[in-house]
């Protein structure tokens, strides 16, 4: 009798532990269920160099969404963003891939535009700036001069 009560208590603790672990991994991994909140917008970049699913999307340094997925379309990188539903993006916004600090992680910076047209859910950001590849630039200006 006593033994089975101990067993139940231990079982409860184990289950509690597993639930806590699941919660933690969901929170830390920033996994979104059911497609997540907000709306999706796609952007095509010539190269994403280091950007990953889950990277931040920012306006003026404030996070307004995250990168949901990155795929290949016509040999370009097609990035799907999930933007918080309260944020309106004008049709002429520019999406640039920037680096936090000198060697930090990559994120997408959106510079707001002035157009009256607003990008609809599942719409597309047309104006992009690819990340500047410093290695390529360096090699170009070091080895370029023959």
């Amino acid at each position, binding site marked *: 009798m006593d033994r089975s009560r101990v067993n139940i208590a231990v079982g409860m603790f184990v289950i509690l532990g597993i639930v806590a672990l699941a919660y933690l991994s969901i929170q830390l991994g920033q996994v979104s269920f059911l497609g997540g909140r907000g709306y999706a917008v796609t952007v095509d970049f010539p190269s994403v160099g280091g950007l990953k699913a889950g990277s931040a999307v920012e306006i003026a340094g404030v996070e307004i969404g995250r990168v949901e997925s990155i795929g290949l379309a016509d040999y370009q990188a097609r990035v799907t963003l999930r933007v918080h539903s309260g944020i309106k993006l004008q049709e002429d916004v*520019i999406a640039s891939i920037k680096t936090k600090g000198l060697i930090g992680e990559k994120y997408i910076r959106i*510079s707001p535009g002035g157009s009256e047209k607003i990008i609809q859910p599942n719409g597309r950001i*047309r*104006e992009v700036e690819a990340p500047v590849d410093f290695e390529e630039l360096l090699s170009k200006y070091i080895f370029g*001069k023959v």
Partner: protein
Amino acid sequence: MFAHALVLAAALLLVAPGPGKVWAGAPTDQLRSQINRTIQILDDPELKKPGKSKDRRAAVRQVANDIFDFGETAKRSLARHWAARSQAERDEFVQLFADLLERSYISKIELYGGEKIRFVGEATDPDGAIVKTRLITKAETEIPIDYRMHLRGDKWLVYDVLIEGVSLISNYRTQFNKIITTSSYQELVKKMKSKQEEFIQEEKRTSQR
């Protein structure tokens, strides 16, 4: 059967005329003809003579006016501050912005020394086109320069230039936004006017020498 239908659909898509008299390759062709015009002007021995630099620059600016949509570039650079401007302010700003671009870029064109331009591709969608080019320097270094264009009437006009992937509009948008939010729009206009004033004075001094 299904494959046949697909092929037919694709063929129809290719043959079907686009909006108006637009056909694939038009942005590249129009851009190429204007770039060739510019190179002709720059290579013109008559305009290379000393004392002719003003005429030469005026001729280049003429071509720039034909291919660039300065109004759109100015609007996009001012971004959300554009909506608050009156029509008179907008016209003034477009003029100041065109002067700024001339000052920073057209005056540099004097340094042109036989660099070549290669057209490497074009992508068109209903809202505009992007024409990809490479500037090949004398040291054989390739610098990617992309032009974003849109259709106005029957002409393709450039509204943004990306050098090494860095956008001209994005650069000015950040700067203008910073000046307007930290001081005011009037301050920005004052700054642009005084810069232009300085440039004109400088020009006078060099031409007197």
